[in-house]
């Protein structure tokens, strides 16, 4: 464990990523405390520039504080990103492990499934799901989880397929260990590194997807999301650049931080685990 941490924290990008991400988490958690009135409260004239009194980040088309909106937007992004990834990873690892370990019909079925998701236009499917389940936080999380679990399943399956023919797994079978025990205690700890890396990258892409949905008006209407802020700014973009640029930068910085972390994890977990 200590060795892993030292490998992880040696690169400056990873440290920056972790620091930035931590800051965003803090902002997200602290938003209701710092800005108890919420992001939808109108606090002044619309389209005031950043630096105006009481509005460090300016105001949007309706006169709401950009700063408060950004803070609350962090909550939505993190919530959707993390929960949809957890769901996707949970489903994906389970199905991928079973398919990779047992092979045969189960594996074939899973492969057809993942192929199906590769062939249909995933984002369109997501729009359909969200629109028809009524746009909400729940439908967003479920929708994203549903179109991203095949990625995880593919990685998990690949790992299990390779590891199951390793000699230590054969030894475990000979020693009389049960299949469940072998899958979870023998193989899974070795299969985790690429799954963890995929998972961390998925949080970033889930945030991007959520913002895209919100931009198109398919996000939860009761929540202030960075994507919806950008969508709302379309008409004012020319005269009030901050209404578009700031939320976009927020998304970019968050996803970049997550990608740095994912990259760092990839380096730290990589070659050694394969010795």
């Amino acid at each position, binding site marked *: 464990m200590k060795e892993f941490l030292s490998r992880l924290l040696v690169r400056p990008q990873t440290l920056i990523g972790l620091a930035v991400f931590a800051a965003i988490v803090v902002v997200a958690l602290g938003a209701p405390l710092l800005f108890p009135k919420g992001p939808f409260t109108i606090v002044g004239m619309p389209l005031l520039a950043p630096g105006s009194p009481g509005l460090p980040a300016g105001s949007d088309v309706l006169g709401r504080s950009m700063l408060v909106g950004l803070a609350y937007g962090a909550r939505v992004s993190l919530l959707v990103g993390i929960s949809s990834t957890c769901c996707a990873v949970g489903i994906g690892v389970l199905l991928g492990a079973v398919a990779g370990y047992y092979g045969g019909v189960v594996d074939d079925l899973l492969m057809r499934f993942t192929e*199906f998701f590769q062939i249909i*236009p*995933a984002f369109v499917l997501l729009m359909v799901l969200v629109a028809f389940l009524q746009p909400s936080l729940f439908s967003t999380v479920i929708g994203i989880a549903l179109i991203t679990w095949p990625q995880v399943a593919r990685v998990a399956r690949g790992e299990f397929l390779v590891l199951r023919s390793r000699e230590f797994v054969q030894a475990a079978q000979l020693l009389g260990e049960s299949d469940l025990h072998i899958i979870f205690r023998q193989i899974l700890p070795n299969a985790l590194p690429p799954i963890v890396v995929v998972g961390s990258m998925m949080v970033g892409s889930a945030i991007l997807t959520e913002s895209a949905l919100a*931009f198109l008006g398919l996000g939860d209407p009761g929540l202030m999301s960075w*994507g919806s802020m950008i969508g709302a700014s379309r008409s004012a973009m020319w005269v009030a650049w901050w209404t578009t640029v700031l939320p976009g930068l927020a998304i970019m910085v968050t996803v*970049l931080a997550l990608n740095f972390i994912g*990259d760092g994890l990839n380096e730290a977990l990589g070659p050694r685990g394969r010795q």
Partner: protein
Amino acid sequence: MKHEKNRVNRLAYIARRLLRTVLVTVAVVLVSFFLIRLAPGDAATVMAGQSGYADEAFINSLRAEYGLDRPLPVQLWKYVAAVARGDLGMSYERRQPVLDVIVARLPNTLLLDAFALVVAMAGGIVLGALAARRPGSAGDAGVTVLAMLFYAVPQFWLGMMAVLVFSVWLALLPQFGIETMGADHTGLARIADVAQHMILPGMTLALYYMASYARLTRTQMIEVADQEFVKTARAKGIAERQVARRHILRNALTPLITYAGLQASILVGGTVLVENVFSWPGIGTLAYEAVTARDNPLLLGIFIVTAILVSLFNLVTDIAYSIADPRVELGR
């Protein structure tokens, strides 16, 4: 003797894959049909609401007209039979055959996709190869950071920024659409006009994938450069440039073909955002309109056409891959 066997294998492989395409398309039809039908509130209600008449009788007559009052299996069967004939039904909202609507817009998306794919691959490979030349150098770090940046940027926002910078502030390129409205260009002038309009959305679309290709190329080249056969090539006294080209690059690029295939589906369905921002009249905007209007036949039609296109594209890339890498056995 070996060549003939390969050709027979390849033809059999194509036949199998085409069959598989049909099967997958059928699966897509079935699954999509049920998914869309599962939606609460059916199309008749939506249509009635849109047209202003919300009374029961009108809704029921609409249902009868579109066959929505029949049992589900019957609806499914009728639909599948129609698709087999090439009839994708009628769009609820536009009162036009779905196939016509799609065919009118499809070429625009394909054009955009083709442009983006070419730019992404060319740019990505060049950048990746440059970065891999000296891993750990400043150039390498620069390319890597740039790639990570483009991964993190929301596409729609990038598009908006591009419009802001190039259309509004610099007034260099047109803001939206595929052609200048009202101007009736023909021939070369028209091509030039479309090309001008294509640059911003095309580049926006391309940048994300360029980052992907750059990273992939870089990783592949570094990995391949470490392989034994590269050492052998040097041991034979081959010039370094030829080693880089014939041995390293050649082997590093083959996985990129598969990657291009994987992106096919993302490209066709994933242009929604870019098309939306630039008001590009393609399948993406069509899909968005169909979702908001609950235009099921149109949606279903888009799914089917996309599935077929992607399958065919995957088939092409798989065959290309098998030509590029002789180790691949066309047995599956």
